[in-house]
Structures are given as structure tokens and as C-alpha cells.
């Protein structure tokens, strides 16, 4: 994968790279949850709403509206990647030259240049999530490890998950299922709950839309189903790409054969991630005119006909 060539920051195996923590989420599993978003993902889904979760190193986040065009960053950039855009009276970053070294962040007074991604040790992260323990207890909630893809930092995620579990905190892992190694798979095997993303049953479409084949994902799913894991399948409803009138029944039939499936969540396409693409200097390419709500509700009806427990939203 191309991204590993820039992976020079992640040398410290003791630490995990986290890009967001939410205290008190009502989604991403049962009860009230604290969701930890880990950076790094093997997939490149066209609709991805957390693009800052894809690369496994800290990335420069540039919020153009906060820039006051002071130019200090231009002077310190060792790669000469920053220039003034005279039209906007803001700086602009050449992402081809930028290696995310962070020199500019150190001199940015406005906060328009920051990092996506902070390193935590297992203990540091645990101390943060355990504060909400009373809320987990009363609501049947816990920690959700999402991302990015949690298995992409296998040692850290496993150690963090175990630390939670040793302290009787429920752990849900929100995964794309693309676990290729033993270290990665054991995270899925030992999580208390899996939020398992399913994008497509068609291997060609899957490769086209996510960058990887679904072969491993499906075989892992079958294996975990065989192990009797608690599984919630999450399907992003992206018109033409994941759910279509033609494949709804096929997916439903497939899912209805999974014995340890507890629920299917249909996650309707949205564009909340657009701002983060801008902050990364990327473009969000996907757009659709389709009626998402109609498609989502139709999918729900068909799934329910197959006896599936369906929820709209996560």
C-alpha cells in the first residue's frame, strides 16, 4: 500500500495514533459509549466520511478560514510547500511537497494549521475513557474503538482493548473486517461486540469502490459468525455503489444466514465529511442526486422481509 512509504512518524510501537475521542455517544453500539477513533485504514472507500482516519501517520490539518495570512509558516517550511494565494489572501499548501513534518504547526498562531492525530499510550487512553465508567454501567454502554480501522494498529488496539476488558468495560470494535494477520484477527475474535462494515458482496464492485477485494472481509465474517460473536452489520447506503435495487435481496439473503447477527444498521449517505477533505487538501469526489431516504427505507423493508432486525442510523 502506498501510504506506508510516508509512515515514518509511527515508529513508537507503544503508542497508538488517535484522531478523535467522543464522550457520551448515543451511536456506535449499545448504551452510552465513549468512541475512540484510531488513525489508519487499509480501505479507501469513495464515500469515506472520516478521510483523516485513512493515513496511519499524523497529517497536516489546514483550516483555511482561520488563516490570517501572516506567512510565518512559509518561512519555516523545509520543503517550500507553502505559498501565498494572493486571490484568497490565505496561504496554500502543496500537498505533493508537504511531508507532514509539522514545522509550520509550531509557528501557526491562529490554529489554522494543526495535526490530525495524537499519540497516546494505552494507559493514557484508558485513563481518558474510564472517566465515563458510571455512564457505561447505567446504560449498558462501553468503549467503541473505531477509526480508521482499529486493526490497522493491531498491537496497540489489542492492548487497549484488553486493558478495558480487564477492568470490566465493554468493548465494541467498529471494523471493516479486512484483517489479514493473526494479530489483527484476534482483536475481532476477542471484542465484546463487532460493528462490522459490509460494503458490497460483489468482489469487483468492492475492489473498485474501496481499493481492496472483499474476499478476506467475507471469510473473516463467516469465521466470526461461526464463533458466535455478537455482530452488528453496518451497511453504508450509497446509491449505485453499495446498495442498489438489484442487490438488496441478495445482501438480505446473505445476512439472514448469519446466525450471530444481532442487528443490521443502515447508515445513509451524508456529506458531513466534506470539510475534513478540505482540511486535508483533498476533494470529496462523490456526489449523488438520489433520494437517500427513500432508498434507505426501501432497503429496510426488504431486509425486514428476510427477518432481519434493522435500524436506521448507527
Amino acid at each position, binding site marked *: 500500500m502506498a501510504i506506508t512509504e510516508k509512515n515514518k512518524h509511527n515508529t513508537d510501537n507503544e503508542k497508538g495514533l488517535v484522531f478523535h475521542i467522543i*464522550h*457520551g455517544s448515543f451511536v456506535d453500539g449499545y448504551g452510552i459509549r465513549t468512541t475512540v477513533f484510531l488513525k489508519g485504514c487499509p480501505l479507501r472507500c469513495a464515500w469515506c466520511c472520516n478521510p483523516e482516519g485513512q493515513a496511519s501517520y499524523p497529517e497536516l490539518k489546514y483550516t483555511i478560514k482561520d488563516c490570517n495570512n501572516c506567512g510565518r509558516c512559509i518561512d519555516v517550511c523545509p520543503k517550500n510547500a507553502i505559498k501565498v494565494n494572493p486571490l484568497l489572501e490565505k496561504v496554500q499548501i502543496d500537498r505533493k511537497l508537504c511531508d507532514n513534518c509539522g514545522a509550520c504547526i509550531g509557528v*501557526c498562531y491562529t490554529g489554522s494549521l494543526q495535526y490530525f492525530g495524537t499519540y497516546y499510550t494505552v494507559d493514557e487512553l484508558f485513563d481518558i475513557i474510564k472517566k465515563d465508567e*458510571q455512564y457505561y454501567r447505567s446504560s449498558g454502554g462501553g468503549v467503541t474503538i473505531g477509526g480508521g480501522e482499529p486493526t490497522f494498529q493491531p498491537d496497540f488496539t489489542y492492548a487497549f482493548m484488553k486493558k478495558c476488558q480487564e477492568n470490566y468495560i465493554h468493548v465494541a470494535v467498529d471494523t471493516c473486517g479486512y484483517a489479514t494477520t493473526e494479530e489483527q484477527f484476534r482483536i475481532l475474535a476477542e471484542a465484546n461486540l463487532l460493528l462490522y462494515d459490509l460494503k458490497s458482496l460483489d468482489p469487483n464492485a468492492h475492489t473498485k469502490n474501496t481499493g481492496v477485494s472483499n474476499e478476506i472481509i467475507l471469510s473473516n465474517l463467516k469465521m466470526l459468525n461461526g464463533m458466535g460473536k455478537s455482530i452488528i452489520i453496518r451497511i453504508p447506503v450509497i446509491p449505485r455503489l453499495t446498495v442498489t435495487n438489484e442487490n438488496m435481496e441478495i445482501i438480505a439473503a446473505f445476512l439472514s444466514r448469519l446466525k450471530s447477527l444481532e442487528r443490521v444498521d443502515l447508515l445513509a449517505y451524508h456529506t458531513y465529511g466534506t470539510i475534513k477533505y478540505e482540511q486535508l487538501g483533498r476533494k470529496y469526489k462523490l456526489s449523488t442526486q438520489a433520494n437517500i431516504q427513500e432508498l434507505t427505507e426501501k432497503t429496510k423493508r426488504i431486509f425486514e422481509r428476510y427477518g432481519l432486525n434493522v435500524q436506521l442510523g448507527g
Partner: protein
Amino acid sequence: MVNVKTKENRISRLREKMLHIPDICIQRAYWWTKSYMETEGEPEVIRRAKALAKILENLPIYIDDDELIVGRSTGKERGGMLFPEIQWEYILKEIELFSSRDWDRCGSISDEEKKMVEDTLPYWKGKCTWDRFNASMPPEIRRIHGGVFFLGTSSMSGVHYGHETIDYSRLLKKGLSGIKKEAQEKLESLDLTKPEDFKKYQFLQAVIITLDAAAAFAKRYADLASHLAAQAINMHRKKELDAIASICRRVPLNPAGSFHEALQSIWFTHIVIRNEGWGPGLGFGRLDQYLYPFYQKDLSDGIITRDTARELASLFLIKVNDLAFISSTVNIETLAGFPTMVSITLGGVTPGGKDAVNELSYLLLEADEQVALNVEEITIRVNSSNSDAFLMKALEVLKKLRGKFKFVSDNTIISLLLNEGRPVEHARDYVLVGCFTPAVPSYSLDVTGGMVNAPMILELALNNGVSRITGEQVGPATGDPGKFKSYDDVWNAFKRQVEFFVPRMVTARNIDTQLYAEFALCPFMSAFFKPCISNGKDLIAGGTAPNIRECFGFSGVPNVGDSLAAVKKVVFDDKLIDMAGLVKALDDNFKEKDRLLQALSKAPKFGNDIDYIDTIVNDIIALFEAELGKYKGLFGSKPAVAISTGTGHLLMGTQVGATPEGRKAGEPFAEGGISPHQGRNTSGPTATLRSVSKLDHLKIRGGSVLNMKFNPDVFADEKKKVKFLSMLRTYCESGGYHVQFNIISGETLRDAQKHPENYKDLLVRVATYSAYFVELSPRMQEDIIARTEFQEV
């Protein structure tokens, strides 16, 4: 004329009338003054009683075609009462401006009304409590009043205390006649040769005058109803009016015999209390408890159905909206949106400790779902014995009303009252009065608190006692802040400023309380407080002592915390700048100090469950509590810390220069009280709740206010509602005190700004009360929009 009136349109018609802008009613001011002109030289308490009687004889009365519960607090439909005995001058100066000022606008008054005011009000020159207060205030206290002690005293706010809940159950059981009998017996037992007994004699005489006057007031309504019944063409309405007449002949004089009578009895009594001495936050207390026996009996006797009972309850809730808090233009900045606040407390436990929720608790929630106006303020006590079904019902209504209810923790408040030495039965029977203050009906007086501009105290510590805005030496010189070498130096300067101001605030309050004890007596209300009758002493003169809670409301406490944390982190931990540099930056309002501003803004902020800052907020509260604990209130009471701002955080902000939290000069402070500063709590709802619940609420005996804004998404389905409930319960069971919610999206509020005509009844939680969004100033509207909106992510 056939006039078919269904229940629904009866309720909606009456409700609609409460959505007009309020009108000033000058009747109370006029008759009260007239009476005072006639009673010169008589004992003050008797003068108060006679003045009340005079109003009740002369107040124009009116019965609306749709009404079943009758009686108006003023001569107007939604009226504003005036209290010239507290402040008269602003009334004369501003009476014509009320209809044109920027917000909290009222209807204009007639020339005749204007003349009545002009002819009488100058009587109060030098006599109203505010004039007397100004005359007796030592100069050095005058200097802090209106500044650090921002809205210091009740005299300054222009109204009576208002934070009382009488013992309505006693009224319903005994009637005015029963209470009069008690007063008479007490009076006959006195030994008038003893000077102290003679004072009691005067008080009890006054009580009897007011009880008779209240009964006569009800009779006026009975006669009016009979008169209207005789004229009525519609036979159905004639029957209703006959029933109203006979109810008004029985109550409040006699014990209530039915649910309808009980509601009418407490309403008449409340009107009288309002006219005697109103202030925002007068409560009805535990309506679901003391009305329940009447509801149950009528239901089993077949006199009412659940539906007719709910209709009556709705009509009652509409009725309480007939009064709007009118105040001077200066004061409405701190309490914007006509906060009349009639507190009603539901749920919790009985004095015996059992689950108190009953069918009426549900019914009152349903009634408010229908009424949803701004004055009736429902507080829900959250106790672990209360069923999920009840609390889910509350959340359902909450969602429909976009917030509105307050939730308080039984655990915390009962512990707090026990810690004060109250008997356990009293502690369990608490209600909320005013915004957020715990009170025990019939046994305690809980006086509202002036607002303290806490960030201004910090500013003085960081500027050697000098205000950055005015350049005046306001506080003591606590040393050149540029030379402070450690966080302890900063803290000690702050502490010394607090030590300077607290005794001066207590003095100011004691002067005020003393004046109220002499000139703002409330013999009628006192009649419904057990200790007042047995001690023969007016409530306002300390009749319930030592059970008196005098609150000092500290505002901007999260800002003081965020500022101290920023100094600690940026100056002393990270050493990015020294104190001299920081002080210079504050002097310059961070001009060309973007980098420092950024660093200060990034320092830990309250509301994100970060101990680094949260412990500092707790230290500040402990300091206030310890300092106040050194002094005594007028009746030997121990002054209490409250954490609140009303809407004063906007105006108080204009009086303080740049602060180290990264706030520029003049910007607002944190809203509510203990709510994290607008937009700074970015870590999710449980992090905010944890920051607040970890504070030592037993030291905040006057209560505190936490506002949270949620996107309606969080109530999207049943499962999410269950999660919300468990979040609320956990907060209440883990040390939290109060929380209330705005369940509304930013888009809706923006749309309401653009199209106010479509949002006439859109309620928002402002401070600890609801107000109509479209009646608020643009600045206040922006402040509400700026609050962190939690949504599902």
C-alpha cells in the same frame, strides 16, 4: 347565539391570550400608595396589611368567557405589577419607554393611567427601600454595588424576594378560616405587657386583616360569576358560571372539597401573595403531592374524569401566566424575557422516603405539554425510586417542548439539606424556588442572591485592584501582578480580593435584608409558614429563623477557572510567557498577541472532564464558601454560595477587560452559572456532565445552573431516549445538582430570527427559566445559538 366550545379550543384560546406582549398594570402601585397615604403613623405591618386589603377591594376583576378557574393577578390579561414601595423612580422615568425599549417590551399605558402614577408615586421619595438603602449605604459599599456586587440586593432589583413556596396543603386542609382561627388563638395567648409579645400582637392582627381581605376578594369573584350567570344566554356557560360562583363562595375561605375547588383555592391565594409582595420565582411546590388526595377522591366519586382533571390543570397552568416580570431597563439586561417563574416541583420522594410519583405527576406533564407557556416552570426531581416510565414521559414531553423542564438530583439536594441540619422529613419534602434554590415549604425562607461578577474579582487580582475598563481602584492593592512568581502568588492575590469583597457584600445584603424586615413585610404569606404563626413573626422579619438561606450568586465562575488554568498552564507550566508579558497582553486586549491568545485558548477548559481545570473551579467554589462562612446573615443565617448568572453574563462581560482564558475585553461570560463557557465544551455530553458533577455541590447550598443544548436527533427513537434517560440518571446519581436542556437545532433558531412571526411561542431555556425566543434581544439570541450543540456523531 349558539356558542359551542370544545375543551381544546377553550384551552388554545386562553393560551393564545397569554402570547400577547404584556401590559403594565398600575392598579397595585396606585392603591398601595393610596393606602399608605391614609395610614401614616400606624405600625408598619398593619400598614402593609391594609394596603393589601385596599388593592383587593379595588383591583378590577374580570372573568373570561372560556374560564373555569378565575381570578386575575392584575387588572390586565397578561399584566405587569409594580412595586413602588421598593423602587418608584424608575417607574416614573421609564413608564413611557416600556413600550419602545429594545426588549422586554410592554403595551403602552393610557394617559389616565399615567396620571394616576404621576399623582401618587412621588409619595415614595425617600421612603421606598431602594431610596432608604442608598441613604444608608456606606460609600465604600456603594462602590462595589453594581460593580463586583453586580445586582447586589433585592432593593436594586425592584421587587420582593419572591423565592417562597407556602404550605398549600395547609391552606387546602384548613381554609383561610382555619388559619385565621390559629392566628386568633395565638393572639389570645399573648401577654401584652411584654414588649416582644406586643410586636407579635401587631403581626397577628395584620395576618387576620389580610386573611379577611383575601376571603372578601374571592367573594367579589363569586358575585361577578353570579352576575354573569344571570345574564348568560348560553345555558352551558350559565351552568359553568353558577358552578364558578359557588366554588368562589367556598374557597379559599373554607377547606377545599374537590379538585376544582383546590385549584381555585390555591390560585386565589397565589394572587393575593403576588399582590402582597411579588418577586420572580414564587412557587406552587409539589402540586402532584398536595392535590393528589382531591384528584383521587373526585375520580372515585365520579365527579371528574382524567380528561376533565387535565383540562382544569391546563387552565390552571395557563392562569399562572397572567403576570409578567416588569423591571427597569437596567435590570432586564440581567433577567431578560419576563422571567416570572412559577415553580412547580414534580416527582422525587415523599417525606417518608417512598416514590412520590403518582397519576397526577403524569397528568401535570400532559397538561403542560398542551399549555407550554413560559411562566409555569416545571422541575422534575430525579430519584432512583422514580420509575423509568415517569421519567421517560417527562423526556417525551421535554422533546416536544424543546427543553423547558429542569431536572434536579434528589440525592444531592436531600444530602445538602440534611447537611444543614434539617429533619429528614423536611429534606425529602423539598421543592425548588426561583431559578434553582432548594426550599422546604412552610419551614424556610430562601432568599434570592445578588449576582457577583467573579471574573471582575480576578481582574482586580491581576491588575493590583484596578478595573481595566474604568481605571478605578476598586479592590485592594494586592501586588504588582507582573512580579507574581508562581501560581500560588496569583491564587493568593485572588483570595485576598475575595476576602476584601465578601464581607462588604454581606454588609450590603444585611442592610437590604434589614430594610425588608422593616418595610417589606408579608403578613399574608407568613400565615402559611408554621413557625411564623407560632413565633408570631413575619416571614420577612426572620419568622422561620434559623431556616433561612441567603444566597450570593456568583457569575462567571467557569471563566475564573478557565483563566486561572490558562495562567497556570501557559505561564508557569509551559513558560511561554512571564506574568509581566501576560499582564501587558491583557492591558492591550491581546493586540498583536495572536500566538499568546492561541496558547491561552488552547489551555484546558472547564466542561471537558479534565481534572487540571475542574479542580480549580472546585477550589474557587470552596474559597467562596469558606469566606461567606465567616459571616452571618441578618437572622443568624449562614450565607450560601449559588452559581448563577441569569442573563447578566452579557452585561457583566462588558465591565471586564481581557481575561487570561483567551477572552477579549467586553465579551460575555459563561451562561447559566456552571454551564461551561459557550462553545468550549467540545468533548461530548458525558464529559460536560462529569466536569459539573465532580464539583462539591454540598458547598453550593444555593444551587447552580447547568444548561445543555442537544440536537433533536438525540431523541430520534426510543432506544436513544432510553440512553438519554440513563445519562440523566447517572448525572443525578453521581453528584450532579441541576441540569436543563434546549432540544433544538441551530437551524431552527436561525429560522426563528428570520421569521419571528412563525415562532411566537418558541420557548428556549435562557438562564434557569424559559423565555419566548422572539422576545429576546438579538445579543441574547446569539448567545443561545453560540452554546455547544451536542448531536449524535
